[in-house]
């Protein structure tokens, strides 16, 4: 089937607006750099720490790459389970969601890590369970995110009008076929914005892994701070501002990407279901 051309013709106004926005951003950045060289802040220091922070960024990205898919798989399963007719599945799903949503992610990460460490040391005589404890902490974060994703998935599935499910059955489609061909495609489109938001939350929550020794960006930041405190508080600010900028960059990339995906799969004539 010929793909309809999805390229919209952008009006001159939009193009001009975007150009101005980009120019403003570039200009602002240039001003900041110039101020740096003029001595407002220690720009050489700012440049020197970038490498350390980027090393941490890699770990952050790895953590995100683990948490989001695992969280989605788990979350989708439990979220879907909450929409089935079997009360067993529904109860299990509800339990999972209610438990992991009521706990702060930090508590889950820290204590799952500590408990596993303790258990491994006492009962399996593992000398240094650090790596496993870290892994467990990340997993705990994944499960926590999964509980939110479960709710999002569930809301998406339930938002598909039951009449369409009935029509699909009336055509002779099996339950499985109805799920995959009718319900899920629409549920997916409805859930996208909320899922995108949740992914941004995951990126921010990876900062908590620093508490159990994960060498991600915030940990790198804290380590640098310990050194920089002797220099001056200005340097401490530089560090945290750069860390914040890195997170901001990540979350923006994710949000923009999700919006692009939304547009690609948008159904003409239909706005996303309210809230």
């Amino acid at each position, binding site marked *: 089937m010929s793909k309809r051309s999805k390229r919209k013709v952008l009006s001159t106004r939009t193009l001009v607006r975007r150009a101005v926005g980009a120019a403003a951003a570039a200009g602002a950045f240039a001003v900041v750099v110039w101020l740096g060289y003029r001595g407002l802040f220690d720009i050489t220091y700012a440049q020197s720490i970038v490498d350390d922070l980027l090393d941490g960024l890699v770990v952050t990205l790895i953590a995100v790459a683990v948490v989001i898919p695992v969280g989605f798989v788990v979350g989708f399963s439990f979220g879907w389970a909450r929409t089935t007719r079997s009360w067993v599945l529904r109860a299990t799903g509800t339990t999972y969601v209610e438990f992991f949503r009521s706990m702060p992610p930090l508590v889950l990460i820290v204590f799952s890590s500590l*408990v596993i460490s303790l258990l491994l040391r006492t009962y399996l005589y593992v000398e240094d369970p650090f790596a496993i404890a870290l892994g467990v902490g990340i997993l705990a974060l994944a499960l926590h995110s999964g509980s939110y994703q479960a709710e999002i998935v569930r809301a998406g599935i339930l938002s598909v009008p039951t009449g369409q499910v009935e029509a699909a059955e009336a055509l002779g489609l099996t339950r499985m076929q109805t799920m995959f061909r009718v319900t899920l495609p629409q549920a997916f489109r409805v859930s996208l914005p909320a899922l995108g938001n949740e992914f941004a939350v995951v990126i921010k929550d990876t900062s908590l892994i620093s508490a159990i020794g994960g060498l991600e960006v915030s940990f790198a930041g804290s380590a640098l701070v310990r050194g920089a405190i002797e220099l001056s508080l200005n340097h401490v600010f530089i560090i945290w501002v750069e860390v914040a900028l890195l997170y901001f960059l990540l979350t923006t990339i994710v949000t923009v990407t999700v919006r692009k995906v939304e547009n690609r799969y948008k159904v003409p004539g239909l706005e996303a279901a309210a809230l």
Partner: protein
Amino acid sequence: MGTQDASRVKVPRRAIPSWRIVSSAVKAHNLSALAVGGFLGTCILLTFLLGTAGVLELGFIYTNWGTLWGPAWTSLVLTVTSFLLGLALATPLGVVRAYAPAIFRRTREEKKAGASRAGRRRAVGERSSRRARGTIRKALLAPAYGLATGYIEAIRGTPFYVQMWIVFYLISLIWPRLPNLFFIIGLVALTLSTVGYQAEVLRAGFQSVGQGQIDAAKAVGMRGRQIFAHVTLPQGLRLVVLPLTNEWIGLFKTTSILNFISVQELMFQAQELGGPQAHPIEAFLMVAVMYFAILMPLSRVVTYIERKKRIPGLGTPMDVTRAAARRRAGVTV
């Protein structure tokens, strides 16, 4: 025509006796509550078994249980205070974000009129001072909008952990000898963070109030500020309660991050028990129960309210149970 055939009429939302829906919802509610209760029961049982087996030291729990009340109270105070402060500060931000784009959007008529001489002359009945006020308002509004958006995006794009440290160094630099320094830093950090999120919630709330009602108010002759006070605000409040409650819950969970700057809240105490006193499992159980006990009822309340306030025709989630209730009550189609 005078037909009384009900299927010709758009079936109103309460076509089924409401007690039937409620009873099924409550049954489902009870079922899930039962499941959660069952899970908790098994956990308690497990705790006792493990305790007797020697893995858990129940005595530790018994002795140290009391140490949690104080920190829990601290967490609560922090949450409530920052939430209320945040609400107050977020309202103007939300208002600016909600209405500035509309003020700046020139209607087609205004654009056409703006080009011609006639258009630039004063309209009938318009005082020139109003015009001037409008321009001043626009001039002030643009940077306000920019700042508000910048702030909100910055808060929402960065982790609280980082925000906390920035506030920490900022305040300890300026007022190093403030009493209750860490508590205040925590409070400020929480407030600044929640303002960002609440402002977005409020903006969405203001913008979601039905345009039709605003048009009706305009038709009656009400002006902007009156419309806001009498139409948008009361309706918006209703729309906004749910997301704000969720934000409150999130805020309470965020207080746990304050343990890194030595604020004596729940997580801090738990770390105390779990780390230095080397009883992580017991500590986790206690603290989990605390958080659970405070937050679970709240989120159940939220879910319950969500269920009740469906708006038909907007792609609403129709609960499996609810659909089943409809079928059982004999309403087909």
